[in-house]
């Protein structure tokens, strides 16, 4: 199985979720993250002075899927999360050894 972790623009979350749903992804875990990359954050004005907000709010998505579907999933995310603007984010993939469904104790493929 593969862990597919993607950092995306916050307003893209709903689209990505739906798209993944359609390609049959049963579950995902999302965490709020602050991103830092080429896009160097935004500025806020406070009483005449500009302040640099270094981090941009992002959502971090983690999806574990069977090897077979991982390419499809990656593709789906890349397409739906893409706005063509700097800051669209990244996808990182690595191998998962074991997956367990806590409720049932089922393992690996069955657990996804």
């Amino acid at each position, binding site marked *: 199985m593969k862990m597919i972790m993607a950092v995306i623009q916050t307003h893209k979350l709903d689209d990505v979720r739906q798209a993944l749903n359609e390609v049959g992804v049963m579950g995902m875990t999302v965490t709020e993250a602050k991103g830092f990359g080429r896009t160097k954050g935004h500025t806020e*004005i406070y009483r005449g002075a500009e*302040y640099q907000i270094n981090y941009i709010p992002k959502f971090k998505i983690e999806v574990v899927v069977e090897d077979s579907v991982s390419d499809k999933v990656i593709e789906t995310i890349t397409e739906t999360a893409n706005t063509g603007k700097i800051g669209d984010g990244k996808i990182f993939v690595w191998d998962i050894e074991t997956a367990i469904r806590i409720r049932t104790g089922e393992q690996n493929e069955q657990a996804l």
Partner: protein
Amino acid sequence: MINAGDTSWILTATALVLFMTMPGLALFYAGLVRSKNILSVLMHCAAICCLASIVWLAVGYSLAFSGEGAYVGDLSKVFLSGVTRDAASGSIPESLFFSFQMTFAIITPALIVGAYVERIKFGAVLLISALWLVFVYAPVCHWVWGGGWLASMGVYDFAGGIVVHVTAGVSALVIAKMLGQRSGYPEQIQPPHAPWMVMVGASMLWVGWFGFNAGSALTAGTDASMALLVTHISAATASLVWLVIEWLRFGKPSLVGLVTGTIAGLATITPASGFVGPMGGFILGLAGGVITYYCVDLVKGKFNIDDSLDVFAVHGVGGATGTLLVAILILPAFQGVGLSDGVSVMSQLTVQATGVIVTAVWCLVATVIIVNLTKRLVGLRVDEEDEVEGLDYKAHGETGYKL
């Protein structure tokens, strides 16, 4: 002879002015700092409120409002001794006059909090505030409202342009300078952590200010009514001034900017609120809004002093502006009540300027001494590490948000 109508209004006004500090000003300031220091700011305001009340009862009121001295009152009314239950002050009970004035003695040192947030020792907050009340606020209050030398000169300060805003503003600047900048200033300083809280605090200050200015009439009649009106107009105008400037300059008017303008407009009208008409209120709002906006830049940008929440630029400068302009806007031509006979705008202006300058100098001198003394006795700043981790936990053992 006590009038129930007047008493009713001043009872209300006293509640309104307390409301300005608790929680108005506390929220206004707490929203402006970083989330790791929110509780410390609330704590500063609350503790000052309690301490100032006791100091006022013990000596403050007596030093400000008893005796014939030109420079300071006497001790005949410490702990209100000798003030009978039914003693009157004008058409209201003296006990009520005491309380109303007490709420001013509470908010003035609390205004100064904005200068030293996020780095000061809590012990220093208490010591500085107590000493400052006795040696700065009480005397100046006596000069202007207690029959002191400025009163004799015929200075106009209806609700505290000199007594409250100039004193707080100047002392704030001095303390900020002596305390030094926050670590990481200005790079690592963040914009307000909770603009919504700033807005709520400002709104409460606005509403409470009706008690502050209209209450200063000490009666419920035309003076109070017109004071409320001009106070509101000045606040609204100055808010729009900030909004317009930010819009033109950055393309985005901000909430914190607008409500900062509100406070500036309120501080500016304060000394004039009993003497000017709607047009005067409007002009003071314009003037106060523009001047304070640029002074914020000046203090932080040019002087490079970390008067963290801009107490001097907003309150000190605003209060001074109003104190000077009242000499002109008091004219009937501007719907004002007019100068007393034989007094010219120039001569009045001189009196007003004298009040502002002498008060500023006194605040400077006294504050320098107080701060140095405090440094010796309890120290001024928390150590770097505590500052970085935040005063909430380090000084008060609490954390602001547990979601």
